[in-house]
């Protein structure tokens, strides 16, 4: 929300936002003071997320980064305010959900072969890393930021897997103002929700869904992961406001999306009828009972999730070990190499050999050779011979190395 918008808003609204942001002394501020205090707090957050005010081709300087993790948590718990629906980009839900996600990171001890495949695929994009396996940052110019809104009322539904769909949305200010006008006094007690319709097998007209459920979304979020529980169903989602008396006002409707099965089809083709037992045999041979490695994890995840919340940001149980593959809890390590550098100088046109092998001189007659130095004794006869072959000087250093581990 821009500072200007905040100034226009009734004081109650900025006050609540200020509370969410934990601005001290907020109740004593007037509207203008609140607005500028909020703007101050919000700028760094927005810059961090996605550069709120960036318009298409305008350059926006990345604002200084400021740690906001403290406010992020409180913010997402703040009571949903319809106005915040438009404040796309501030969505802290994702971060919050990641922390509370149903699957703990690092719970997998051994990599499944699918994970191993991903490790190898990752290696394709591998060019460098710090010796300790800590990825270094690429030296590139800070990119400009993408806009956080496109001035469109839009909600899109995407399938993640048999049990989860993801939705993102944007509601324009105009639509919100309209909604506010029509909701009148209910506006301040209205909640933002996603209404998730199961429209499997129906030509959805808004009223004929098989069933629906609501997901309350916290103010400020602009995307949500929805646990749809039952695989192989078709869904459609409305974003809207529900007033205290339960009246729903739709702001935008999504595309429809069908989640996949997590098991073989229950449909046995008539022409190709297969008895169950025979199918089971083929299913097992196809690896079917462990394809489920994926599906099984999903099932576990769902069970855990059902006991908890219905949304999740990033239930990433995929704890990728560091690129160097040092998956140990304590990654301390030490390597030591020894090299011997032999260097010298002579006439620029002289011939030099080291251990009998010719050495290339620099134009000024100097040379440097380096050797990996193994344990033991090295005798290194160095011979310089004048260009005409008349003079010859031999110097023979002997070097010994012993390593104690």
């Amino acid at each position, binding site marked *: 929300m821009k500072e200007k918008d905040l100034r226009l808003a009734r004081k109650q609204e900025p006050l609540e936002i200020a509370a969410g942001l934990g601005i001290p002394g907020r109740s004593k501020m007037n509207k203008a003071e609140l607005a500028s205090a909020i703007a101050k707090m919000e700028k760094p957050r927005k810059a961090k997320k996605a550069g709120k005010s960036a318009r298409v081709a305008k350059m926006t300087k990345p604002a200084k980064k400021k740690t906001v993790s403290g406010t992020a948590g409180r913010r997402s718990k703040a009571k949903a305010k319809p106005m915040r629906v438009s404040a796309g980009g501030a969505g802290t839900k994702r971060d919050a959900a990641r922390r509370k996600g149903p699957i703990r990171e690092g719970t997998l001890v051994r990599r499944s072969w699918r*994970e191993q495949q991903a490790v190898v695929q990752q*290696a394709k994009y591998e060019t460098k890393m710090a010796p300790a396996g800590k990825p270094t940052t690429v030296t590139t110019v800070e990119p400009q930021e993408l806009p956080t809104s496109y001035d469109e009322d839009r909600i899109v539904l995407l399938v993640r897997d048999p049990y989860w769909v993801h939705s993102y949305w944007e509601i324009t200010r105009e639509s919100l103002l309209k909604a506010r006008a029509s909701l009148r006094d209910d506006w301040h007690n209205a909640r933002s929700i996603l209404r998730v319709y199961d429209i499997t097998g129906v030509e959805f007209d808004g009223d004929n869904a098989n069933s629906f459920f609501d997901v309350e979304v916290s103010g400020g979020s602009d995307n949500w992961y929805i646990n749809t529980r039952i695989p192989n169903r078709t869904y459609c989602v409305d974003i809207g406001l529900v007033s205290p008396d339960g009246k729903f006002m739709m702001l935008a409707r999504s595309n429809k999306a069908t989640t996949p099965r997590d098991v073989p089809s229950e449909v046995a083709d008539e022409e190709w009828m297969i008895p169950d037992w025979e199918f089971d045999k083929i*299913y097992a041979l196809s*690896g079917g009972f462990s394809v489920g490695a994926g599906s099984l994890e999903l099932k576990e995840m769902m069970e855990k999730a059902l006991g908890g919340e219905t949304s999740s940001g990033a239930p990433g149980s995929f704890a990728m070990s560091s690129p160097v*593959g040092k998956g140990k809890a304590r990654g301390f390590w030490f390597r030591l190499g020894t090299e011997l550098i032999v260097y010298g100088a002579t006439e620029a046109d002289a011939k030099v050999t080291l251990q009998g092998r010719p050495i290339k001189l620099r134009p000024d007659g100097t040379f440097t050779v380096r050797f990996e130095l193994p344990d033991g004794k090295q005798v290194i006869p160095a011979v310089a011979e004048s260009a005409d072959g008349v003079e010859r000087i031999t110097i023979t250093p002997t070097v010994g190395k012993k390593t104690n581990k």
Partner: protein
Amino acid sequence: MSKPKGYLSLVLHAHLPFVRHPEYAEFLEEDWLFQAITETYIPLLNLFEKLEDESVPYKITVSLSPTVVSMLNDWMLQERCVRRLEKLTELAAREVERTRWDPRFNKLALMYHYFFENARKTYVDKYRRDLVSAFRKLGDAGNVEITTCAATHGFLPLMSVNKNAVWAQVETACRYHERNFGRRPKGIWLPECAYTPGLDEVLKRAGIRFFFTDTHGVLNASPRPRYGIFAPIYCPSGVAAFGRDMESSRQVWSANEGYPGDPWYRDFYRDIGFELDLDYVRPYLHGGVNRVHTGIKYYRITGQGDDKQPYDPDVALDKAASHAGNFMFNRERQIEHLSGVLGREPIVVAPYDAELFGHWWFEGPQWLEFLIRKTAFDQNVFRLTTATEYLSMHPKNQIATPSLSSWGYKGYNEVWLEGSNDWIYRHLHWAADKMVELANRGDRSNAIVNRAIKQAARELMLAQSSDWAFIMKTGTAVPYAVKRTKEHLLRFMRLYDEIRRGAIDVEWLSDVENKDNVFPELDYSVYADKVYAGERL
């Protein structure tokens, strides 16, 4: 050879995102391509040509993504690749000197010197930097079936809210394939094996006959597939779907039982680019600062822990031979058993990332060679085949709709749709809608406007590469992936804005055309509604 009991189809998918930065003298991520050329594409080409020369019977499918083909065709990248190869040859020569007192390493330094020198000779002298023609020739010879992939490897199921965008990815790929390989592709590798019902309709319109899915894509098809994944199914559109075999995947990929993890194989991470004195390797690093992979790696995997033993190529070669024998033996038993149970010749589909062979798994090309030769001469239970060949032998197949699936971790869309990368889709979808709007304008009279619209299409496609989301999720190069996504989207937005305002900054447009020059002949009308609906503009 007597009639085989079944078939094995090896599928290698070669893909890298489009990375080309003329604005820098050298660019770190361009190494992805140079490494793939040196360690994978050239060894594979060498292998296939050797098999052709010796008339070894074999069949294999190679999917070349249009971005890889586009980069292989780019003269600037070719030039840079030659320079990189020269540098590496020079470094290897210095290594031969440096390791003189330690025969364990000296032997390896000599091996790498030969390896790079040979790669350089093959690339420069033999192929004249034109690997695409080399693949084309193999394709024409008939043993290597070359398939395409979506234009920039866009993750199609998450793009399908805009059908035109999906169509543009597929049709652009097919046309580019035709231009480079002389014919429309019969098959496609769906990026990340990601399928969603309905996608086959788009493929059919592009003339595609088959694609590959992960195991559960076919296994969970509806109605139930009678032969599991051991026969293709026809989507209602008539396009065939081949499911990936779990067992052969596991044998190669499993961290514990998988071949590439054998202690005798070469370790990927212990590269001298990270290990040797910085002053010494500096001339071979980017900008002299960032330690990078040079490809010279002296240790074998050895075991858990950091204490690695020097690599021994002779033992590793034996290992590759016995692993190939083991793989073949398992396929024989599997196929024998299956043919009994199914009452029909099964096809076992084993798809892999091409870059697994040589780049990650150094001995991979040797393993492949042993496998192909042994399959040809040491057994008669199964034969190698391609999807096209199998379909011509078994044209009659069950009709079923595959299930939404991908070959990513957990098997669905999550890798490309989760907390680290879900933010990209609102921008990608918006841009796709605007691209359709631009393509629908219909007025093609203004050359500059046309150029700008074409460039907008390129920027959109480049932003859509599934690689960016994958890297954001798993990644080693996250800032780069984020930067690329944003950069292309911002360029798209600026173009869109300038086209609408009728104020195109031609100088800037030329600059961007020069940078993002993928698919020189791109026809943006593939985005238009009329084209999608089957009409020409």
